[in-house]
Every structure is written in C-alpha cells, then in structure tokens.
C-alpha cells in the first residue's frame, strides 16, 4: 500500500492538465502526508526491534519473492523520504514558475518517492537493485527537468552514467552475494556475514557493492557528478541530492555492514573513500561562488563524513552514521530551501553579488543562519551532537596505523573548512553592505514557501537541545535493527563534560573562523580553489567517455573490422576450412576403404565436361559474362544429370527447371551491368593484384580439395543408420504417398516447407520492392547498341516500322512458344497431381508453370503478353500461402496438431488413381506460391527494360561523379 501509493499518485499527476498547478501540489502533498502517516503508524510494532514483513510470490522458480521489510533503519529512512518529501512538495508549489510543466515535475517527484521507499523497504537484494536503478533514472529525469538548458542535460547525463553504472556494479555484487549465500533474501544475507567474509569471492562482491554505493553517494573519486546535478530545480536538489537519494549509498553501506563489514578491506576501502571525500568536499566547498555549488560540495563532504563513520567499522560508528544522516537531512534540506528562496527572490545565486540580505529577508536569514550553524557543528544544534560522536569515534583506535593515529588531527583540520564555508555562506550573503544591481529586489517569500524550512530548522534546534527526548528512541530502534541486541553504550547529551571531542569542536570552530578571514580577500576575486583548480572531474569524465565510446571504438573498428567484402569472405572461407580441418586432424581420416560402386566411363565423361564448364565459368566471369553464364548452365546441367545418376529424379527435375529460370534471370540482369575494359589495371597495382590472385587461388584450391577429400572419405564408408529409415518405412503407411521425398516435404516435414515457401514469398516481394525504386547506372540507360542498330535499319526502309527486325527474327520461336504454352501448362498440372506418388510435386510444377509464362514474354515481348494475359503474381502468392496455412490449420478442426494430413484416393478418368491427401492441397499452395514468386521476380526484372528511366540531370560525365548524382535523387 505504502509503495503503490506514490506510483499511483505519479500516474494521476502525470495525467493532469499542465495548468492544474494547485491540484497537483495538493495531490502530491496528500500522497506524501498519507505516506508519512502510514510509515509513522508502523512505529509501535518496530519499537522493540520487531520487523514488519510482507511477502508476495514473484519468481518462485528462482527463489525470488517480492518482499517488503520494515525495520528500525528502514523506518528512519522512510520517515525522511516521506517527511522531507512532503515539505519539498509544499516548497516546490511556490518555487516553480507557472510556466513550467508541473504535472511532469510532480509526477516524477512522486515516482521518485515511491522508488526511494522501494529501496529502503526492499526485503531482497534484486528488488533493491531494481528500485535503485529506478531512482537513478528518475534523478536523471528530474535533473534534466529544464531540458532546454544544455547544462541541465549534461548534468543529467553525467549523473545517469555514474549512478546507473554504479547500479550495474551493485547488481553484479548482489548476484555474487546471492551466489555466496544461496538466497537473495535480505534477512538471510544479513545472517550469513561470517560465511560471506570467509568466502573466496568476498573481495569482488565487496568491491562491486562499494562501487554501487560510492557512486550513488558521490564519494571520491565519483564525487564530481553531484555539483553538476545542481542544474536541477532547487526542490529537487534539496530532496534528491542532499536529503534522500545520495543517502541511499550510505543506507546500503549501513544496511549491509553486518554482512560485509568487520574486515580490513572494509576499513580501508570505505574509510579512505570517506576520509578523502570529507576533506576534499570541505576544501572545495570553501572556494565555490555559487550558493548551490557550495551546498553541493558541502553535501559531498558530509556524505564523506558519514561514509567514513561507516568505514571505521565499529558499532559506535554505525550509530553516529545513522544519527548524522538524520541531522544532515534536516539542516541541508533547509539550507537548500533557503538558497532556493534567495535565488527566487533576488534572481542570483552568486555569492560575490549577494550581500546584506539580512535587511530584506530577516526571517529567511535567521533560518539559514541556524541551519548553517548546525552544519558547522555549533553547540545547541543537532549537527554538534553528531559531530561530537564523529570526533569521539575518530579518537578511538582502529588498526593503529599511521593514518589511524593521525585521524583526529586530519578531521579537525577538515572540520575547520566546514566551519569556514558555513561562515562564508552566512557572512557574504546576509551581512555587509546592501546589494547593488541585483536582477530583482529581494523580499521575504510567502509564508508557505518559508514554512518547510522553518519546520526543519525547528527540528534542528529541538534535536540539538533535547536529544534524548526527541530522537533518542527512534535512533535506538534504528540502531537495534542494524546491530541486533548488542548495542554499545552511547549517550545523547549536550554536555559530556570537558572531553577531547569538545576541544576538537572548539579548535575547529576557532580555526574555521580564522581560515575564513584569512582567505576572504582571495575568495572574492578567485576563480577556483588553488592546487585543484585544474583537476576537473567533469573534464576527466568526458575525456573517458570520448576515449571509450568513440576513439577506442573507432580504433577497434579500424584495426579489426573492415567494410570490404573480400577480406570478410576470405575469413569466412578460411574459418570454414579450419573448422572442418580441426576435427579431421584430431581424429584422422580414413581413405583406405574401397569404393562401393564401379567406375563408369560415361559418368566420368559427363563430369569431365562439368569440370571444364566450372573452370571455364570461373575464368570467363570477369570479361565474358555471357560465356560464363552459358558455362554455368553447363555445370548446372551436369549436376542435373548427376542427380539422375544418383537416383534422385525429383532433384533432377527441380534442378532443370531452376536452371532455366536462373539463366533467364541472369540474362535479364546482364543488360544493366557495365562494360568491362581489359587491362585497365596498370603500374604498381599489377604486383599487388597478382599476389591477391595467388592467395585466393590457394584458398580456392584448399577449399575445393578439402571438400573433395571429405566427400570421398564419406562415400567409401558404409551408411550409418539415420532417421531416413523411418521415412522410407512410413511414407506410404502414414503419409499415403509412394514418392518419399514428396511425402517428407508436404507431410512429415510440412512445417519446414511452410517456412520455406514463406521465405520464397518474402524474397520475391523484396525483389519487387527493390526494383520499383530501381535506378540504373547512367551508362546503362540508353537503348542497347543492337536494338539501336535494328531501329536504324528499320527506319531506313520505308515499308518497315520500328521493331520489325526483332519481330521477324522471333516469328518462328514465337509460334512454337504459343503452341507449347498449353502443353507446358498441362505438364505442370500433371507434375503437380502425380507428385505424391511419382517424381513431381508443387515446387517442380510451380517453376514449370512459371517457365510457361516466361517463354511467352521472351517470344512475344512484354507488351504483347500483357495485352492478352493478366498474371497477378502477388495474388498467386497470397493464395498459395493462405491455402498452405489453411490446410495446416484445418487439422485443428479435427482436434489434431497443425499440418496433420489425411489421405484417400480418387479415380479420375484418363489420369488414373490420384492421391487425394490433404497434403495435395498443401502442395497446391506450394505450387501457387512458387508460380507467383518466380513470375513476380522475372517480370519485375523484365519490366525494367520497358520502363523509361529518367536520366540524371545534368548528364553524368563519368563513373566517378555518378554516385553523388544518383544518391542525390
């Protein structure tokens, strides 16, 4: 309920009209308030260390449940999320300008709230990672909310890259943890800390989880995204980038500390990241000139402090960390709100331009002052208490190394900077002379805009003065949830007596003031921090991105890839050759067996022709395309004859038909190819070309020889038992046909055939589509030379008209073709009908019928045929496909699986008994589709010669300039 509510609200807010400003704010506030109430009502059941758990089955097969789990720690975070969420919504209502699209804003904000609740309430790691990534995504959307500004877009992209990259690492870490523990359930993971720490995968899992947590919490060296995220609207910065989202990293650290902590690796990794971030953030914050920039770096610094506390690896450290999370959320959110108010009312956030605002907005000023004092750790405020705990913890001995002993001095020094930037914030903005030339005249904001900050500052004070009365029990509950029943002694009091911690605080306060007044003159003029000015995280990030995604990719492509076809094919052939060679090399190849059949002279002679044809085609293909085509046909015929010899009549028939159609097709294509000029390659290229040819020749000989050896070796071995046996035995008894090949195609493997004819149909349609937009090369457009000569001759004679020569030449063939047409059609039907029992079938018959049509086109010309015969190839194809599918689907009517066939026989006069299997209908579908596809392809190509092609304008002068011209169209 708690989790669904914000998402539900988000959807509603997203659907609202863009000017429904109040309604959305009210809705969002109501949702947050309801969430807050819901969360707080669960407190009684948690106060004694209890856990509220809801489990829904999610992916039970993987042992994954959707678990919501609320304990003390989750409760504290859920309160922060909903409570500060409520205040931010109220604040945003006044902050956002009426011209901004508010539904989007509130929708994202509510969704973010839901995702945050999802993280803190997750009862298993995978679910946690899911919500984790969701917050990264919503943070991206919210930072980029003002998407018209380039700064916002860049900041959003950087934040997304960093946090979701970290999220991926966290996901991997969660998987490793799940592997170690055997479950993703949080309770079980927390309970098996000893097992995890002893496991060999402990360090990788720790590193991955830390990468996730440290990127999210903007810890060094991943801190630089947070200042750039400040391009977001200020309510977003207050909510996401100080109070909640960046805390999830810390939350995760505290949450998993019982499972992962307690080792030297944890101490050093987490501790040093926290320490460096703490110092660096504080140092850089002093030198910021932008109010929000200052707050961003101070947030980084405080997150570093919290991380350091967690990293110190003691129970007391965890207590202080949780306490500081709460304190930081209150004072930093109020400071952001104050900064937003200043920005909103005065029009600038530049510290150098602001001054003396105390006179114009005293209430805001005092609010900001109290909050800043809490940030600096001034007594009587909540920040002081957690700082005290922090100092006390650093004094403790951890591993007694040099760093550990120096730690109190280091953190005191860093705290001076904390004090310095807090002081600077107050002094520069609110005191001094009245500001000049501000974009707007500053004044107090409306009450409700101030109210959230007031409430938070009030909390700072109350917690600071009466800690044990206010947050004491809550903190105790949260701590017990992390540490279990054995909680160490700690006390929440203002005054502990005169302790070393107090001394450190005093030194830090005094030193901070001294630092500020020393640096003041430098700060007013400087453009950035000394020493580190040139170390720009953003620039490094961008450089990395460019290097990885652009330069490295280009380099790899340039060195490992090629866009040229020939090397790719060489590689392909070589790989195939090696793939065949390796098993043969390992297991040996036996060529010693004796052939099963005798040498046949006629067959050898046929193949002598075939080999000559193949070699000739290879030799002629470059300069004599027609000759090569004829030789290719020769090789095809030899193959066809071999099929007859090898007892494959169906194949022989198919090959013959396909050979005819292919030849016609290629002949039609020849017209559009360029003329070859012999000996165009000269000079230095000759040597290179010779080398290429020698290399390709070796590859070709190796591939051909290898295949020959392989074929021979296989042929002299006895045939193994294969599934063919089943087909031979059952072709008639179960398929009702005696032509086994046909029965396989239309019955046993009918589904494959269906797929195959679909492919053919797709190819035909592609060919058709490609040719519709066909633009031939400029030099192929004019009418061919022969036709021109014929036309000239025709026009020279007064009694002849254009086209007579060709008509005369084709007169006899045309007559024969016309007479043959019905014969071929009959043959096709005959082949189709007998296909189930005798050689024939849909494929063969289909191509035969297509040939009948094509012959008419060849003999009479396109116009003549189309004036007399309308072939609608696409309809044929559609009909065929529907029929084939329909036959298959008809089996469903008889509650049989798809494509189950039924058969009986019918006596037809003259033709004899024909099989009436439902497979025949299927074959009819195949037939129709093949006719349609073949005719479509051939006619589409033939039409190109009839179509008049537009010449590119102006006419191309050479092949070099042609591409630009034709592409331009």
């Amino acid at each position, binding site marked *: 309920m708690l989790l669904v509510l914000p998402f539900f609200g988000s959807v509603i807010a997203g659907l609202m009209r863009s000017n429904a400003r109040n309604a959305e704010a009210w809705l969002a506030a109501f949702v947050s308030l309801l969430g807050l109430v819901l969360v707080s009502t669960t407190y009684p059941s948690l106060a004694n260390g209890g856990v509220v758990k809801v489990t829904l089955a999610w992916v039970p097969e993987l042992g994954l449940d959707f678990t919501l789990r609320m304990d003390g720690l989750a409760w504290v975070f859920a309160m922060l999320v909903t409570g500060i969420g409520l205040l931010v919504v109220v604040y945003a209502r006044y902050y956002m300008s009426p011209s901004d699209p508010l539904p989007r804003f509130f929708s994202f904000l509510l969704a973010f709230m839901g995702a945050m609740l999802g993280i803190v309430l997750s009862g298993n790691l995978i679910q946690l990672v899911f919500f984790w990534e969701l917050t990264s995504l919503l943070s991206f959307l919210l930072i980029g909310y003002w998407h018209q500004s380039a700064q916002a877009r860049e900041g959003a992209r950087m934040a997304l890259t960093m946090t979701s990259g970290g999220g991926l690492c966290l996901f991997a870490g969660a998987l490793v943890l799940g592997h170690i523990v055997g479950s993703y359930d949080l309770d079980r993971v927390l309970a098996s800390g000893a097992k995890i720490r002893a496991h060999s995968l402990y360090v990788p899992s720790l590193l991955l989880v830390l990468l996730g947590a440290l990127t999210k919490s903007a810890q060094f060296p991943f801190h630089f995204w947070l200042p750039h995220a400040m391009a977001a609207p200020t309510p977003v910065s207050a909510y996401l980038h100080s109070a909640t989202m960046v805390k999830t990293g810390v939350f995760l650290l505290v949450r998993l500390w019982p499972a992962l902590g307690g080792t030297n690796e944890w101490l050093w990794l987490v501790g040093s990241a926290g320490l460096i971030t703490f110092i660096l953030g504080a140092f850089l914050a002093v030198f910021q000139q932008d109010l929000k920039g200052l707050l961003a770096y101070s947030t980084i610094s405080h997150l570093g402090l919290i991380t350091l506390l967690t990293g110190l690896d003691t129970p007391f450290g965890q207590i202080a960390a949780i306490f500081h999370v709460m304190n930081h959320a209150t004072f930093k959110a109020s400071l952001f709100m104050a900064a937003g108010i200043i920005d909103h009312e005065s029009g600038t956030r530049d510290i150098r331009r602001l001054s003396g605002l105390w006179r114009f907005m005293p209430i805001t000023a005092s609010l900001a002052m109290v909050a800043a004092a809490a940030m600096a750790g001034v007594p009587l405020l909540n920040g002081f208490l957690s700082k005290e705990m922090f100092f006390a913890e650093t004094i403790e001995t951890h591993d007694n190394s040099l760093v550990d002993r120096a730690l109190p001095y280091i953190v005191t020094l860093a705290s001076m900077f904390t004090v310095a930037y807090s002081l600077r914030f107050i002094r520069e903005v609110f005191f001094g002379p009245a500001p000049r030339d501000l974009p707007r005249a500053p004044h107090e904001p409306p009450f409700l805009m101030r109210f959230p900050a007031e409430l938070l500052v009030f909390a700072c004070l109350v917690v600071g003065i009466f800690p044990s009365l206010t947050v004491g029990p809550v903190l105790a509950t949260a701590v017990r949830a992390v540490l279990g029943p054995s909680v160490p002694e700690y006390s929440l009091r203002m005054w502990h007596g005169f302790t070393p911690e107090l001394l450190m605080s005093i030194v830090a306060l005094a030193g901070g003031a001294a630092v500020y007044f020393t640096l003041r003159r430098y700060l007013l003029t400087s453009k950035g921090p000394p020493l580190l000015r040139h170390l720009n995280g953003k620039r490094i990030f961008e450089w990395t991105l460019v290097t990885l995604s652009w330069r490295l990719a280009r380099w790899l492509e340039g060195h490992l890839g090629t866009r*040229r*076809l*020939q090397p790719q094919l*060489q590689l392909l*052939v070589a790989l195939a050759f090696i793939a065949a060679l390796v098993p043969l090399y390992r297991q040996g190849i036996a060529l010693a067996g004796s*052939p099963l059949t005798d040498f046949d002279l006629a*067959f050898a002679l046929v193949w002598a022709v*075939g*080999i000559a044809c*193949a*070699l000739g*085609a290879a030799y002629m*293909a470059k300069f004599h395309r027609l000759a090569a085509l004829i030789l290719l046909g020769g*090789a095809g015929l030899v193959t066809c004859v*071999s099929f007859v010899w*090898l*007892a*494959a*009549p169906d*194949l022989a028939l198919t090959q013959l038909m*396909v050979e005819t159609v*292919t030849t016609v097709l290629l002949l039609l*294509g020849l017209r*559009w*190819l*360029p003329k070859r000029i012999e000996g165009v390659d000269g000079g230095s290229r000759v040597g290179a070309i010779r080398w290429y040819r020698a290399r*390709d*020749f070796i590859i*070709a000989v190796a591939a*051909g020889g290898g*295949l*020959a*050896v392989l074929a021979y070796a296989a*042929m002299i071995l*006895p*045939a193994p038992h294969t599934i*063919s046996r089943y087909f*031979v035995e059952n*072709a008639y*008894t179960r398929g009702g046909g*005696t032509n*086994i*090949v046909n029965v*396989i195609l239309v019955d046993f493997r009918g589904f*494959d055939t269906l797929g*195959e004819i679909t492919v053919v149909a797709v*190819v*035909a349609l592609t060919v058709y589509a*490609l040719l519709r937009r*066909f*633009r031939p*090369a400029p030099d192929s457009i004019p009418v061919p030379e022969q036709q021109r000569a014929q036309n000239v001759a025709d026009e020279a004679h007064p009694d002849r008209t254009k086209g007579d020569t060709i008509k005369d030449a084709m007169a006899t063939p045309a007559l024969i073709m016309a007479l043959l047409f019905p014969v071929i059609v009959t043959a096709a039907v005959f082949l189709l009908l007998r296909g189930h029992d005798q*050689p024939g079938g849909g494929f063969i018959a289909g191509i035969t019928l297509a040939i009948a049509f094509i012959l008419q086109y060849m003999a009479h010309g396109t116009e003549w045929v189309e004036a007399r015969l309308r072939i609608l190839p696409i309809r044929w194809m559609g009909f065929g496909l529907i029929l084939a599918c329909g036959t298959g689907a008809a089996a469903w009517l008889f509650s049989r699986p798809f494509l189950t066939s039924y058969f009986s026989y019918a006596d037809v006069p003259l033709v004899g008994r024909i099989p009436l299997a439902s497979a025949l209908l299927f074959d009819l579908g195949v037939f129709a589709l093949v006719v349609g*596809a*073949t005719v479509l*392809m051939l006619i589409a190509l033939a039409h190109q010669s009839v179509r008049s092609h537009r010449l590119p304008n102006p006419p*191309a002068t050479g*092949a070099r300039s*042609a*591409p630009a011209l034709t592409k331009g169209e």
Partner: protein
Amino acid sequence: MELTVALGIGTLAGAGVWLILRPRTFQVIIGLSLLSYAVNLFIIVMGRLQTGAPVLASRAAGDPSQYADPLPQALVLTAIVISFATTALFLVVLLASRGFTGTDHVDGREPER
C-alpha cells in the same frame, strides 16, 4: 564413381570459392551458384551412392536398403529453390548497388590506385 563425384564436387567448390573472392559482383553471383551446386551434391552423396530412386515400388511400407536415402534429397530440393530465390535477390541487390554507386565492385566503390 565415387572418385569422379568427389573430383567434380571439389572442382565446383574450388571454382565457386575462387569466384566469390573476386572483386566484381557478377563473378560473385556465378561463384555462389557454382558453390551451391557443389554443396547440394555433397549433401546428396552423404546418403551414399544408391541406384534405387526413393519412390516406393508397391503401396506398402518400404525396405530402406532398396532405396536411395530420401532425406538428403528432401533437404536439397528445398535448398535448390531457396538458392534460386537468393540468387534472384542478390542479382537485384547487385543491380541496385550498381545503379546507386556507379560501379559493380563488391564494395560499392573502385579500389584506390
């Protein structure tokens, strides 16, 4: 006879491979056709050389030792039709590429000299 077929397959394949490595599109299309002959024959002879066509002599269950292996034949029959379709497609792509780029080089541009 085995030797003859093996030599034939080898030559067809060798000529085909040689041609598909050439730089002109028409050479490649011829090469692919030759290669597909070789491969189809290779698949067929995997069922060994038999003399009985896979057409049952009587309307009853057949005896596998009497007939040529029908399975490679069914595979090759579809292969022939598909290779016809791909040849057609390749031819059209070839023509379109030639129209767009003005060259019949396989890379769509003449090599630099």
